[in-house]
């Protein structure tokens, strides 16, 4: 499994965190939680989130907390950390989270899961990193990019979106020169898939110098996984899966392993090497 030893440990139990801010970002929303008790998370980790009021309210949904990767962490002046989350409203849970206002409370458990390896850990000869993000999957890529910048490791970011209504966070979370965009509808940047950009980049690159990281929808991740497998390139993927608990209790987040059987994505991931899994397509998060 990807590096886990230095992943920060979650406090036992869920805690109520204050919503410091919620704002539109393109077609997405970014909200900020003040986690006064939690540790600083590591790139790749995720949280289980549930708005404190009106969760399992009218209609009984959303009921389960939602597994969401954080998009940015900063120090909170009064202790703990401030966490940004990037949200696309795709179901009752994400819609409820998107409706939270400043001053509301949100139940938080985590940070859970493992972290991304550094490029040299993933690929001994790596001179830098290529980050491939799709949709809200750009969030963990933004976290990783920031960490690489802090460590002085060069990276290039390739970000793909369906259309303008399903995009956001780029300026706020990336906003750098080394970012290339693809829109499936051609409304901006490259017209097509972000994997087109990855293929272009790999053609012009010394493939041996690339450590590749990716997060996005299952079909995109599977395409990235195959591109890398075909070229013998090491890649780490941050996967998503329907998940009830986040800490190994529910056994819901099964991802098929390359050697057969299943891993629990919450405790054995969410970051996996491309060659650890049989497919990235198993975990369409249809609970929204």
């Amino acid at each position, binding site marked *: 499994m990807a590096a886990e030893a230095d992943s920060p440990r979650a406090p036992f139990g*869920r805690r109520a965190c204050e919503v410091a801010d919620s704002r539109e970002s393109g077609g997405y929303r970014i909200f900020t939680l003040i986690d006064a008790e939690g540790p600083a998370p590591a790139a790749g980790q995720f949280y289980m989130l549930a708005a404190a009021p009106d969760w399992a309210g009218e209609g*009984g*949904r959303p009921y389960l907390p939602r597994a969401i990767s954080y998009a940015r962490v900063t120090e909170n002046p009064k202790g703990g950390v401030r966490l940004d989350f990037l949200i696309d409203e795709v179901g009752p849970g994400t819609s409820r989270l998107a409706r939270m206002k400043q001053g509301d409370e949100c139940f938080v*458990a985590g940070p859970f899961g493992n972290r991304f390896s550094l490029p040299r850990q993933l690929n001994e000869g790596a001179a830098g990193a290529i980050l491939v993000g799709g949709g809200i999957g750009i969030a963990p890529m933004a976290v990783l990019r920031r960490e690489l910048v802090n460590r002085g490791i060069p990276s290039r970011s390739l970000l793909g979106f369906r259309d303008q209504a399903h995009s956001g966070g780029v300026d706020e979370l990336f906003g750098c020169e080394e970012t290339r965009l693809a829109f499936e509808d051609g409304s901006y940047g490259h017209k097509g898939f972000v994997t087109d950009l990855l293929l272009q980049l790999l053609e012009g690159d010394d493939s041996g110098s690339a450590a590749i990281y990716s997060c996005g929808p299952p079909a995109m991740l599977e395409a990235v996984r195959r591109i890398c497998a075909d070229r013998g390139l090491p890649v780490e993927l941050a996967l998503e899966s329907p998940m009830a608990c986040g*800490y190994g209790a*529910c056994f819901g987040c099964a991802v098929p392993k390359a050697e057969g059987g299943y891993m629990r994505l919450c*405790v054995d991931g969410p970051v996996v090497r491309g060659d650890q899994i049989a497919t990235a397509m198993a975990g369409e998060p*249809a*609970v929204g």
Partner: protein
Amino acid sequence: MAEGTADTSDLSTDLCGIELAGPVLNGSGTFDAIAARRVFGDEVVSGFPFDCYVSKTITMNPRPGNAPYRLWETPSGMINSIGLPGPGLDGFLERDLVQLAEFDVPLIVSVMADRVEDFEILVNRVAEREEVAGIELNVSCPNVHSGLIVGEQPSETEALMKALRPLTAKPLIVKLTPNVANPHEVAMAAESGGADSVSMINTVKAAAIDPVSTRTWLGAGAGGLSGPAVRPIALAQVRSVASAVSVPVIGMGGITDAESALEFILAGARVIAVGTENFRDPRAGALVSEGLPAALARRGFASLAEAQSVTLD
């Protein structure tokens, strides 16, 4: 014993001879204590959220579990189709049991098999381990010989109990399925076969249809419903069973807090188990325990024992 309880802050009780510091268990398969310790650290040991730990169901051989998808959220609940992934009997005894013994609460091991011969091996080998306080029999599985789900048939349940009863003096608990018209008949058969306790309810048979692909959503085609959505069903069945048998009932089904736990005690459960709520809050069991003294006092009970002895009209 509970009769000595002087106030609502003393929650100590017993379950067929197993002394418990309180009445809160976990439902089998809803809290992986080993994984939780790996995630949260030793706080899971020092602040273990249950008074008694029930393991996930152990089978003879290792099982990978069902193909994804395994979960579906429903109004006030969820459907699961996990498929009992696990290390098998040998793996459990060699690795998991040693780690589970480090949690300072009595341990009940859940076992399942599809033939009585395998049930006998499971019970024999689990019961001989001193770390184990009791065994729960998961009977929601077809008998390969008869093709019938054991827990849906009073005769099958009684026959299984009669085969297993002579094997151990440790408490044997039968986990009852709610997917029968008259659960008290199965409970009475379990008691007649020598069961020391019954636990209920297991999940309610349920299906989910994917609105996009118009196929069934779960990998196994269907699964079991749990969470507050099933609580009224569970309460009715606990009440029916508790009035029909004299062995203690472990009540569960959508318990989220001390108030809903107390509803099960009043329905006739001696102790209760928290299941799906553990997914929403890893400390859910501890919050139930912490809330119970006040919940008992609010309803005018002087002690847990008094609430346990209530007979509803």
